[in-house]
């Protein structure tokens, strides 16, 4: 059993508090960091505890603020930036790609850039084309960046601390629908590796997932177990570096693989993993590997248009059944009444 009963947002908060305490030079900023909503509760009380000099609100200047973090970091001030949506960080691509990711290599290793950029991924309630994108592959494509995407509160805490004390720039992706969740709602035990975790053992299929989709994967596992399909669920956690050996080891055991990806399909995390599987295990699988992603379409706003857009456990179950050429009565599977909210706790609009 997990000891702590902390939800995801409190874990983030606690990781930040721990790090601010441990490194007296560290700073932390982002729009709304100490406003009444404190970035979905993740930065609550931090400026009270550590002072406005270290935890502060900022102008809406994503590009400059990222360069400023690089400048602070190369002179010894670890910096954590938070964007309430990943989409806002796009204004800072120049500083992320041309500065943060380069400042070490480009100068022959003279300096390092210990910054962590937290980005929150939106979903549902009409977040629409510019408030819902998972562009993780874009960041993974950049040499010099690490990209983490935890699912569970416990991982989030350890991984955020690890990111902050990593001497390199880390992109830290948080799914908005995870913030209120507690691990014990989904898990009873958990290994403690910080990359590609096998969070649930099985023998028939390796189900690789990321972030919020891991919860759907676990739900699907439960359902499929009833007809004797035993699924091994691998939560990616670290998108770059990717712990491919652990993934391959699992697939060698199960000989089947399905990948769940919250991003767009072209040049995606799932296609990267698929290509690694082909390169390493070509021909040795019982069924060809499959991935489920978002469609290659900007996310529309309308409730009616997003209806079947997201991957849920029912889609996963259906896909697995196809892979096994099996069937089961799916009528009893309950779809949530509204596909665009994570639960009753979500009162909108963000």
């Amino acid at each position, binding site marked *: 059993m997990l000891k702590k009963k902390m939800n995801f947002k409190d874990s983030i908060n606690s990781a930040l508090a721990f790090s601010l305490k441990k490194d007296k030079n560290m700073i932390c900023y982002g*729009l*709304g960091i100490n406003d009444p909503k404190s970035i979905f509760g993740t930065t609550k009380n931090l400026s009270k505890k550590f002072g406005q000099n270290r935890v502060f609100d900022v102008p809406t200047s994503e590009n400059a603020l990222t360069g400023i973090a690089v400048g602070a970091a190369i002179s010894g001030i670890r910096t954590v930036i938070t964007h309430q949506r990943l989409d806002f960080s796009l204004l800072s691509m120049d500083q992320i790609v041309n500065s943060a990711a380069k400042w070490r290599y480009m100068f022959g290793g003279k300096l390092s850039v210990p910054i962590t950029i937290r980005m929150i991924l939106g979903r549902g309630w009409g977040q629409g084309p510019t408030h819902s994108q998972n562009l993780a592959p874009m960041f993974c494509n950049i040499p010099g960046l690490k990209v983490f995407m935890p699912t569970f509160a416990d991982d989030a805490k350890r991984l955020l601390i690890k990111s902050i004390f990593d001497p390199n720039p880390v992109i830290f992706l948080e799914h908005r629908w995870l913030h209120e969740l507690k691990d014990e709602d989904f898990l009873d035990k958990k290994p403690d590796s910080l990359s590609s975790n096998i969070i649930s053992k099985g023998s028939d299929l390796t189900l690789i997932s990321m972030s919020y989709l891991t919860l759907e994967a676990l739900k699907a596992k439960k359902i499929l177990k009833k007809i004797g399909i035993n699924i091994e669920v691998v939560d990616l956690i670290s998108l770059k570096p990717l712990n491919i050996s652990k993934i391959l080891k699992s697939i060698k055991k199960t000989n089947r693989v399905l990948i769940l990806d919250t991003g767009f399909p072209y040049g995606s995390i799932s296609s990267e993993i698929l290509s690694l599987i082909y390169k390493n295990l070509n021909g040795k699988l019982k069924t060809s590997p499959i991935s489920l992603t978002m469609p290659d379409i900007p996310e529309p*706003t309308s409730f009616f*248009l997003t209806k079947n857009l997201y991957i849920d456990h029912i889609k996963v179950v259906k896909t697995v059944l196809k892979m096994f050429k099996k069937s089961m009565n799916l009528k009893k599977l309950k779809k949530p009444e509204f596909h665009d909210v994570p639960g009753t706790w979500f009162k909108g*609009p*963000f």
Partner: protein
Amino acid sequence: MNSNLNFKLYYKMKLFREVELKIAMEYSSRKMRCPVHLSVGQEAVSAAFSQIVRKNDYAVSSHRPHLHYLGKGGNLKRMISEIYGKKTGCSSGKGGSMHLIDTSVNFMGSSAIVANSIPIGTGLALSLKLKNKINVSYIFFGEGALEQGVFYESVNFAAVKKIPAIFVCENNLYSVYTSLKDRQPEKRKNSKMVEAIGIKSFTCNGNNVFECYKIFNKAKQYVSKEKKPVFLEFFTYRHYEHCGPNKDDNLNYRPKNEINSWLKKDPLKNFTNNFTNAHKQKIKILDKEIQKKIKDAFEYAKKSPKPKLSDLRKDIYA
């Protein structure tokens, strides 16, 4: 107060207020499932704009676009439908409240990303110049956009190229819950700063619709005559939360006395107080017209068909 213009300004302000209040009221039925940023309290700017702008002028806006869209002559029914995610929405349900468009009146779009549409409006101004048009491009944004580099890049370009752009900043003192003091130097005059970049600037009481009208008029004249861009800054205040249908003064991020002093400067109330008893009859008729227009728009939206799932794949490419 008897002039036609005053009644027109009243009509627009009242319409804008009532539309936003109706959205706020209906939002709780959880049928408008997208973020909405209301402009209650900020009606004067858009009402004045509506009386100056010409159909062939362009306009673009931000995440808070309802009144700019309506001020430009955008279709009310299609805006409400868009917020309801319906097929008849001005963006076919793809965009929601933050992404409005009505190309029939040259309202060319609004963007949820702060400052995102400023260079786009600048590009529209460039096209007007290249095509030798007498029209102008209105670019609406909040003071938060002044914190983005692209604002300065756009103003600089507009100044260098001498293009007919009217940059319209509605300064409501807050970016979400963050007050100006955390974002911009105290006592800085944005108009002076922008003027130093090289374009003419005016400031205005954004809660006085008549003053707004005069400034928009002045700006239009200036741009037509001088063939140069202008920056306008309107000081105003929102009455509702940054995003959503409620008031959030209980959160205490805005000082009570500040809120109260701005509520006293309510643009609609103050303007309405200027009408004498003799005008009451006319006002009543206008109010009725407004209520009917809004009722029709909401009925239209509610009755409108949902987009089809096949529409999802439409319009990805031209």
